[in-house]
Each structure stands twice: as C-alpha cells, then as structure tokens.
C-alpha cells in the first residue's frame, strides 16, 4: 500500500513540486522582509524549483504512451496517468513558467507589483496545466483547467491600477467561465451516456472508478460496439457531450470561432502574463484535447469510427478556419501584442492539424510527438517575442506599436537580431526551429491523409510570412524614431536571448526527448496523393474502407 502511494506520488511529482513551490513562494513573501533582497530570493527560488521539477519529470518520459494497445499506467485509482506524453508536456510547461518568471523581474519592480503573489499564481497556474496533461478522468481535467484558469484570470488583471488590465481580466473571466460551463456540461452528458450504456449492456461498473474515467469510457465504447447494439458513440447524449467538450477546450486554446477574447485579453494583460498565457493555456488545452479525443473518438474500430466522422469534419473545419482567420486578421494589426495574439491563434490552428492527425491510426504516435515538438519550439519563439517587448520597454511603459521598433537594428543590433530570429522561426523559415516544427506536424498530417488541410495550412502560412516580415522591415529597413539607448534589459533580456539561442539551435540539432520519430507509411502500393485527398474526410474514409 505504501509502495503504491509512493509510485502514485512519483508519477505526479512534477505538478506536486510546482504546487509546493508556489506555497513556499507565498510563505517567503509573507515571512521575509520587504525590499529587493526578498524579490531576488523569491525569483531565484521559483526558477530553481522549476528546473528541479522539469528534471524530475524527465523520468516519466520513458513510460510508453497510453493509447491503442498499450494499457496506461494509471495512478490514484485510475484518475491520473503517467506516460511519456504527460511527462513531455510537464517539461514544456516548466520551460514556459521559467521563461515567464525570468522575464518578469524588472517589469514587476517598475510597475511596483507584488512579486510573491505573482510568481505563486504563475506556479499554481502551471500546475493546473500539468494536471490537465496528466489527468485520466474528465473531472480531473476540469479541476486542472480551473486551477489553470482562475490563476490566469487574476494574473491578467494583476496590474490592477491599469484600466486595460482590468478590462482584460473581466473579459477573460466572463468568457472563460462560460467556456468552463460548456466543458462541465459536456462532461455531465458524457457521464450520463456512459452510465446508460453500462446499465443497458448489463456491464458492471468496475469498483472504485467513475463514469467520467477515461479508461472506463474507453472500455464502454469498445464493449458497446462489440455487443452489436448501437454503439455509445452514436447516442445523442454522447455526441452533444463531445461537442460541448470541444467548445470548452477550444476556448482555452483560442481556436476560431472561440478566439475573440484573445486579442483584447492579450493586449490588456501585463506583457509577461500575456507571454505566459499564450503558451501555458494552449499547452494545457491541447494536452487535454489529444488525451480526450484519443479515448472518446477512437478511429481504430469501423463502427465507432463512423460516429467519429462528423467530429473529424468539425475539427477539420475548426483547424482551417483558425489558420485562415488568425493569419488574415494578423496582417492589419499595428500593435505588436495584438499581432502576436492573432499569430498565436494561427499557430493554434497548425497545432490543431496535428491534433486531428493524432486521432488517425497509423499517424497517431507521429502526430502526438509532432504536436509536442511544435509546442516545445512555439514556447521559445513566442515567449521570446514577448520577452523582447519587455526588454525594450522602460519606465514602466512599453513600445507596443510595430512602428515604434523602427531602426532598432541600428541602436540595439543584438535585440533586433533576436527578434528577427523569432519572426523567421514563427514564419517557418529554415533553419530556425519553427520550420522543423511545421515539417513534423504537416508530415504527420499528410500521413493521416489530411493532405488537403496541410496544403491549405502551408499556403495560408505565407500570409504569416508577410506580417512577421513587417517587424523585420521596421527594425532593419526604417530609420529610428525612438531612443532605445536605455532599455529595461534584466531578466527579459536573458529570457529573450535564451529563447533565441534555443530557437536557432533546435533548428540544427535534434531536441533530445522532444524530437519526434516520424515513421514512414507501410510500404504498400497505396497512392500517395490518391483519391483519399479529394474526399473532405480523408481520415475516416481511410479507416472505414478496409485496406486491400
């Protein structure tokens, strides 16, 4: 018994360390005297703790992923799961929190914001996202999401003396609460559908688990299909539940049409918070999306797959819309934070392409790895770009207009070069890491039969090239309008340069555990770009029609 508790705890070591770290930071904030020494202590304790948490999570990355054919290694009565997938997400989240904290030091000082609460909230929020990645029960996913979100609501209003920050917090809170409601309602409907199915088929509920447990749901789906009756995936309750679940998670990941809050919230929130939430909320939401869809819409069984067809179509449409809307609306932005907000929407679309591919057998493992790699590199390039905005600000203010950065290359060549690296990487130009991320995701998409979507995404991503270049045009091709001789620097510079180095480096060398191993197709004589591509629903078609 003790042994099992220990393994349970070890599986969840990463979020546990981060939560405890958050509490320690709060205590330090209360217990020690005021002043710069305390700020520095809290700063370094937080960073050190995150490094430790990330290192502890590495152990979990050797456990095979839960999925088809692999019984997941669950903990806490089946409510949590420890696998490679969750472990990698935890590490990415540690990096996000670490960079966000690193870039906050001078910013908080200049705005005279309380650093203890701030760091603790970032840590709590991070642990929430980690729980989402490790959860194996719908209820746990919801709890993780709320921990993530509530802390983010507070953080976005953290500069409470600024109107825009207040507005941002209120908008985020109101819309976020609605989204949580949708999510919870969806979970309740799925709970009901599973319960009915278990009762009808006379299957006994395994003791100690609930109808919201993903393992139970997976088994119920499987057995309801095998008993010959209508599979649970075809029941209206279940379909409505999944639909609402999509809405809730899509909101957190800022997927069109649930994205409209993002630009306002990103613009109004304190910049380090924007940086943090642009990555952390997405990572949490995508982890949950992949985990949940792998279970709820398994594509490896013909009769179940049929029921999944409409959802694949919906996700296809959402991904296409997100990529198009995010990229198109980003063009007209003159505010760099809003531009990055729309760009992050576009990137959510690319990631969603990978998520969609992950629900297709054969491409599933590749796609999951590709999505994780994408989020890993996205973290560096996106947080790096926000860190630049903080780095170049001063006297409690920031240059938020793109035109403000004119001539930066003449005054701060290093800063301009780092920003150019982020922009080229976000645009997917090799040899920056953003290119490999796109390559991996689109490779898995083509493999999953989503060639049409991959082509669309690639073509639309050219629009991205245009607006990212706008920033380079300003920095390098225009004459200076602002004086960048005295800038904020500090942790923001460290975070930006670190991110730039990582962005460049991971374009050249494999990124260790994060590098996906993309296997090729089975060497059959299937057409590469055959009929599957013309159909609007390639994955499902490929599944339903048995291979010759």
């Amino acid at each position, binding site marked *: 018994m003790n042994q099992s508790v220990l393994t349970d705890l070890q599986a969840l070591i990463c979020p546990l360390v981060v939560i405890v770290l958050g509490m320690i930071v709060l205590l330090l904030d209360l217990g020690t005297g005021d002043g710069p020494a305390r700020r520095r202590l809290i700063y370094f304790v937080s960073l050190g703790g995150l490094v430790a948490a990330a290192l502890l999570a590495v152990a979990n990355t050797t456990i095979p992923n839960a999925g088809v054919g692999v019984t997941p290694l669950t903990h806490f009565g089946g409510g949590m799961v420890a696998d490679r997938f969750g472990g990698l997400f935890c590490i990415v989240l540690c990096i996000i929190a670490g960079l966000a904290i690193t870039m906050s030091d001078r910013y908080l000082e200049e705005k005279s914001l309380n650093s203890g609460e701030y760091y603790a909230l970032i840590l709590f929020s991070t642990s929430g996202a980690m729980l989402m990645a490790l959860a194996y029960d719908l209820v746990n996913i919801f709890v993780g999401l709320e921990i993530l979100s509530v802390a983010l609501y507070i953080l976005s209003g953290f500069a409470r003396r600024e109107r825009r920050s207040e507005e941002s917090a209120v908008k985020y809170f109101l819309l976020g609460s609605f989204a949580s409601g949708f999510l919870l309602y969806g979970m309740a409907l799925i709970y009901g559908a599973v319960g009915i199915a278990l009762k009808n088929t006379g299957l006994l509920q395994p003791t100690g688990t609930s109808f919201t447990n993903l393992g139970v749901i997976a088994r119920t789906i499987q057995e309801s299909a095998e008993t010959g009756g209508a599979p649970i995936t075809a029941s209206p309750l279940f379909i409505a539940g999944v639909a609402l679940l999509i809405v809730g998670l899509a909101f957190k990941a800022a997927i069109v049409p649930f994205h409209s809050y993002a630009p306002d919230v990103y613009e109004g929130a304190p910049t380090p918070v924007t940086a943090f939430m642009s990555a952390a909320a997405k990572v949490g939401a995508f982890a949950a999306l992949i985990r949940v869809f792998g279970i709820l819409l398994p594509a490896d069984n013909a009769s179940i797959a049929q029921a999944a067809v409409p959802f694949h179509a919906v996700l296809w449409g959402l991904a296409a819309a997100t990529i198009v809307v995010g990229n198109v609306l980003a063009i007209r932005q003159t505010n760099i934070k809003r531009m990055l907000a729309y760009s992050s929407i576009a990137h959510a679309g690319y990631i969603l392409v990978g998520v969609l591919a992950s629900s297709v057998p054969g491409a599933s493992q590749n796609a999951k790895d590709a999505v994780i790699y994408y989020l890993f590199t996205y973290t560096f390039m996106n947080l790096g770009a926000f860190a630049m905005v903080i780095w170049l600000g001063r006297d409690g203010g920031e240059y938020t207009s793109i035109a403000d950065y004119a001539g930066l*290359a003449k005054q701060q060549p290093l800063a301009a070069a780092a920003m150019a690296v982020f922009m*080229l990487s976000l645009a997917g*130009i*090799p*040899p920056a890491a953003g*290119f*490999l991320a796109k*390559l*991996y995701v*689109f*490779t898995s998409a*083509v*493999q999953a039969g989503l*060639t049409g979507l*991959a*082509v669309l995404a*690639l*073509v639309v*991503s*050219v629009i991205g*090239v*245009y607006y990212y*270049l706008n920033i*380079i*045009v300003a920095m*390098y*091709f225009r004459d200076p309008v602002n004086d960048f001789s005295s800038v904020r620097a500090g942790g923001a510079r460290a975070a930006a340069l670190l991110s730039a180095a990582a962005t460049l480096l991971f374009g050249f060398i*494999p990124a260790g555990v994060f*590098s*996906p*191993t*993309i*296997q*090729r*197709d089975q*060497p059959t*004589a299937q*057409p*590469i*770009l*055959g009929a599957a591509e013309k159909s609007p629903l390639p994955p499902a078609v490929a599944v339903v029609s048995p291979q010759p």
Partner: protein
Amino acid sequence: MQNLPLLSLLIALPFITAVLIGLAPAKSARTIALLGSLATFLVSLPLLGVASIAPTRGGFAFEQNVPWLPNVHVSYHVGVDGAAALLVVLSTFLQVFAAAYSQETIKERVKEFYLFLMVLEGALIGAFSSLDLILFYVFFELSLVPVYFLIGIWGGKHRVAAGNKFFVYTVVGSLLMLVSIIALYLRAGTFDLLAIKQTLVSLPPTPTAMLMLFTGFALAFAVKTPLFPFHTWLPDAYAESPIACTVLLSGAMAKLGTYGFYRFCLFLFPEASQQAAPVMVTLAVVGIIYGALVAAVQRDVKRVLAYSSVSHLGFVVLGLFSFAANGQVVPQALTGALLQNINHGISTGALFLIVGIIETRRGTRRINELGGLWEQMPVFGRLFLLVTLSSIALPLTNGFVGEFLILLGAFQAYPLAAALATTGVIWSAVYMLWMFQRVMYGPVTNPATRRLRDLNGGEVALLVPFVVLIFVFGLFPTLFTRGLNLSPTEIASPASMTAAREAAPAPALAQGQP
C-alpha cells in the same frame, strides 16, 4: 582526393567568414569578406575537374553522407555532378567579384552587408551540393533571408516593397515543394534523394500522383527561375537590390530554379516531366519572347537586363524540357541547357557589374539620361561591347554555344517552339544593341557625362576575367561539357547511381525492402 570533405569545407568557409566578420571590427569587414570569398573560390577550383573529366558519369563526386536528424532520417548528404560542380564554382567566382565591387560602393552598415553576402554564398553552395531533400530545402530557403536583408537595407527607393514581394513570392513556391517532399518521405521513409529515387523506381506511385509531386517541385523552381508567368517579382528585385546582390541573384541564385528542374524534376520524375514538357516548353517560349519584348521598351538599364534574364533563362528551361520530352534523340538539349546556365551567369554577372559602374559614375541608370559614354570611356566601352555580344549569343562567345545546342535539341522535339524561340535570339540582339547604342554612342546629351573618367586598373581587373571566360567557354566548350553530356538513362536511372550508392548505402532503404 575524392574522399576529401571538400564540399563541406566549401559550405563552411562562407559561414566561417560571416562569423569572423561579425566578430571583427567594422573597419576590417571588407578585407575579411574579400579574403574569405577568394579562399572559397580557390577551394572550389578542384570541382572543375568533376565537370571536365567526368569521373562519375551520372553519379556524384566528393560525396559525404552523415546523419543529421536521425529521428526523421534527414542526413547531411552532399555531392556534386558536373552540372552542380560548375554552378558551385560559378557562385564562388561571382562572389569574389561581388565582394570586390562592393569595396568602394557600400558605405554604410558595411559589416552587416558582408555578413549577409557571405551567408548568401554559403546557402547557394549548400543548395547546389545537397543530395538530401530537407538539406536542400533548408539551404534553398535560407538563401532568401540574406537577399531579403540585402535588398531591404541597401536597395533602391522601392526596396521594401521589392524585398517583400520577392520573399513572399518565392516562399509560396517553395511551400508547395515542401508538400511534395513530405509525400515522398512518407513513401520512401527517408529524405535522401538517391534512396527516394530507388523507391520511386521499385514502388512507382500512380502517374497522377507522380504528376502532382512533380508539380509541387516545378512550381517552386518556376518561381525561382523565374519562368513566365511567375516572373513578376524579378524586375523589382533585380532593379532595387544593390549591385553585388543582383550579381549573385541573377548569376547564381536564379540557377537554383533551373538546376532544381534538372536535379529534382527530371531526375525523380522523368515520366511526369515528359508529360509536362509541352506546358513547360510553351511557358519557356512565351517567356523568351515576352521577356525580350518587354526588355526592349525599358528605360532603365538594370530593368533591361532583368527582363533579358527572363528571356535567357527561358532558353534553359526550353532545353531541359526538350530533353525531358525526347531525351534519347536530343541529349544535346540538356548539355546546352546546363552550359547555358553557366554562360548566363557569366554574362549577366558582368553586365550587372557594368551597370553598377555606370550608376556609380553617372548617378543614374536611365537610358535617356545617358549617351555618348564611349567618348569618355573607350576602354569601358570595349569591355561592355564584348559582354553585350556574349549576351546576344554571337558565335565565338559562350552564349552562342549554349543557345545553339538548346535550339538544336529543341528543333527535334518541338520544331514550332524552337522556331519561335529562335526569334528570341534576334530580339535579344535588338534590345541589347539598341540599349548599348543609346548608352554608349551618340552625342553627349548630358554635361555630366563630360566629366566621366575611364576605368581604373581595379575596375578593368574586375571585368577582364569575365571577358576571358566568355571566350574560353565560347572557343573550348568541350573543356567543361564532358560532365554535362548525359543521356536520359544516365540522369534518370538508378543504375547510373551505383557508384554513389556503394559509397553511401542509404540506411532506411535496406529495412524498407521486404
């Protein structure tokens, strides 16, 4: 000799030079760049042997194959055949003159200028010698970045618009190529060019799929070359970029497009290339005539040359696809096309340097503000005339050999297209000589011309090597054609790659074959 990592050294040298420029004080940037370019050029000279003695017909020399991203079977696989070797040497040659020319003309942000110039050279050499699709794609795209900055920072009045157009346009093309590359990877399990070729031979996809894969590659190269109607970025980019960049852009980088057709389209998809040949040949001929006619009415010397490039590169594409259509009968079309690739680089590189000299002295490139330059600059006039004659393919110059071989081949495959293309030769005489006449002859209309001085020793040294090469290639073309004189089986059959395969067996291939 064959086992020297010569290509890696060649790729690395420009990047090392770029790093040195970055670290050194701004004052020494010029010197370091010139020395680095010279060193790269000297190191590249052994590659000429690949073209002239053809030690590996249809295979690759100086091959090196090291895993790079083993997780997705991307390898650092480089090697050159005759065509690629000549293009690498052409790039390093032009780079020396681009760097030398810029010594006096680039005054501001000197350090960054040479840094970008060196990165561009490195990317070009890398792209010409890549035998891995991802490696090629990375260099292909990387080459855009320095050009973008070169145009955007040191370019003319409309530099920002020209740079953006250039960048976005070429990226669109190459993204479609990326889709084709991904599809090939999923079939072959590797990005290695030779292993992919083997898979395509042993497990051929449907003809439709082949054609789609071909189209992805062809669009990228059509934009890069550029082939009509994908040429609209070119006049602005050429006209707005600084001379050194235009020289590399037109002389070497545009060859990425024509070389890409040869290396990837003709090699991987010979059947699809054959199917697509009528379309490609039509576009090439339209480009030849259209480019020539538009060049004739330009008012800016640089734009005349820009449109002339559209016309001349149309000949190269005509040759390549005449060969693809009927290669057994007309192997000379390929030889001509590959040779013309180099010839165009030499002539156009020299012509753009000449425009640069005119512009620095007179402060304008507008034809109607020039005139009567010969009186003041007779030495310059003679050199300019020789290069002009080479550009219009006068016999004894390099241009003649290439265009003659191309037309000879094209006549047997597409008589009508060849006949129409031949008028392009006449048109090029029209626009080039007319431009030359208005710039160099006639009365001096502008008093500023009176103050011009003739070329100094350095400038003569800048142009004379080009003139020498024009005659070397014109009189002794066979010196370099042995490596280019390939039959269709040699460029498109895996049997010819035996040498290369034995040198470096593709790892993913072995496990893929049941």
